[in-house]
């Protein structure tokens, strides 16, 4: 589903590559934690998967596409297969919960009938029933992240990317979010989650890929957070 072959990425302004010689493969349906100190290259890895950034060298294949050959106009269709969740939720403050989720479908031209059918389904899945018409600032952090996850998942992507989704949440709320991501993973969606929340990683016992200074230092199935140090 995601394959990196000797991928190096250096930002123009930096002297050191953000990612260096990364080779890794993530299969369809896997749940993978991407761990490492801040600045180790986790977000860069995810941006490469999304084709928000391009690799300096090496090959990246995502959902059967060679990203170095993906032409500009095909990027939107490619991104429709990937859902994305961030630490800061990134909801639109002037839209209700329902509108925020519907927005993701509307802007890719889905018909109204489909939007009206699918949005409540996914809001039920993330257990936000009864709060459809709230504004984001009337929700708790955990609830806001559920809306963001609903938005990322509403188009039934093959891959869900989460960049520190629990970074702004307290531990109890985080557990709820992890359960939700686990449920989404069980529908067959590949989940890649960057985090430095050791408790969560230790608890979930999923595959762990660790980055350090842009290098892959550990790739362990059913891993824990702090094994390598």
């Amino acid at each position, binding site marked *: 589903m995601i394959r990196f072959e000797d991928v190096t990425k250096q930002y123009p302004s930096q002297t050191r590559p953000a990612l260096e010689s990364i080779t890794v493969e993530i299969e369809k349906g896997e749940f993978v934690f991407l761990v490492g100190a801040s600045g180790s290259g986790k977000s860069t890895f995810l941006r490469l998967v999304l084709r928000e950034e391009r690799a300096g060298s090496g090959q990246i294949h995502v959902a059967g596409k060679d990203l170095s050959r993906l032409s500009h106009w095909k990027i939107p*269709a490619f991104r429709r297969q*990937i859902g994305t969740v961030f630490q800061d939720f*990134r909801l639109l403050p002037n839209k209700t919960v329902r509108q925020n989720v519907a927005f*993701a479908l509307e802007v*890719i*031209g889905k018909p109204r009938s489909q939007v009206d059918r699918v949005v409540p389904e996914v809001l039920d899945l993330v257990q936000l029933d009864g709060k459809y018409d709230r504004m984001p600032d009337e929700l708790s952090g955990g609830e806001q992240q559920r809306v963001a996850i609903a938005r990322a998942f509403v188009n039934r992507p093959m891959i869900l990317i989460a960049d520190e989704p629990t970074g702004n949440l307290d531990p109890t709320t985080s557990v709820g979010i992890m359960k939700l991501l686990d449920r989404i993973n069980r529908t067959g969606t590949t989940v890649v989650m960057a985090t430095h929340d050791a408790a969560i990683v230790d608890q979930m016992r999923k595959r762990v890929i660790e980055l350090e200074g842009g290098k892959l230092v550990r790739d362990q199935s059913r891993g824990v957070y702090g094994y390598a140090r």
Partner: protein
Amino acid sequence: MRARLILSEVAIGLRRNLTMTVALVITFAVSLSLFGMALMVRAQVDTMKDYWYDKVQVSIFLCGKSSDSASCAGGAVTQAQRDQIRTDLESLRPLVEQVYYETSAQAYQRFQEQFKDSPIAANASPDALPESFRVKLSDPTQYAVIATAFAGRPGVDSVVDQRQLLDRFFSVLGGLQLGALVIAIVMIFVTALLIANTMRVAAFSRRRETSIMRLVGASDFYIQMPFLLEAAIGAAIGAGIAGLAMVAFKRWVIDGFLAPTFQFTAFIGWETVVGILPVLLLTGVVLAMVTALITLRKYLRV
């Protein structure tokens, strides 16, 4: 394509950047007005050329009592010379289309009428205005034929081609035309810069929406459409205002003041003004869309 959604995005955008939108509309109104003016000046000069070139004549001034050119050494023109000139002119048909003889008294009368309210009229005397043959040519550029045939002949004081006088006049007007065009082009350039800046601000103020659109896989077209429409609507409103200015100018300045005051020339008609309106709209909208598109490619790239 969800028209309703896009339109609501446009409405949000126009409202959110109200001051920018107003600035954009005003700039469009001003620059398109100037552009329209340039087009009107151009059409006006063409109209005058048609009107005047159609009326130009070659004048063959005959010697009077007080003429002092070499060919008038023999004194005032004689009847025989006059008849000979007329016969020679007749033989030059069809190049010579019309021949009209004007006596000194008629010239004086015409002069008095033309300068009714001016002190020049009072000072002129009939003797100062020579008699002449007014010759209308079927091809006004063939002036030289008349000049070689009549200039310097006894009894002929001078041969004057009005077209040459007009050409000098029109070369001044040509400068005016060019000036108007340059101003219009500069204004259009300024407008383009303002559109670019407006789009930059608009893209920035809606970066939250557009970044989410990008993430969920909205196409460039979909992301940029609200911005393009915003620019196009601003341009259309500006063009509308400029159009009203053109119509008002024609109604009150040209028809209400210029035409009655300067009756010696023709002025552009309504069909010219009406013809300019779609040009303004098209220029405005195309300029807005193209500039916006170029700017947005930079700021809203997927």
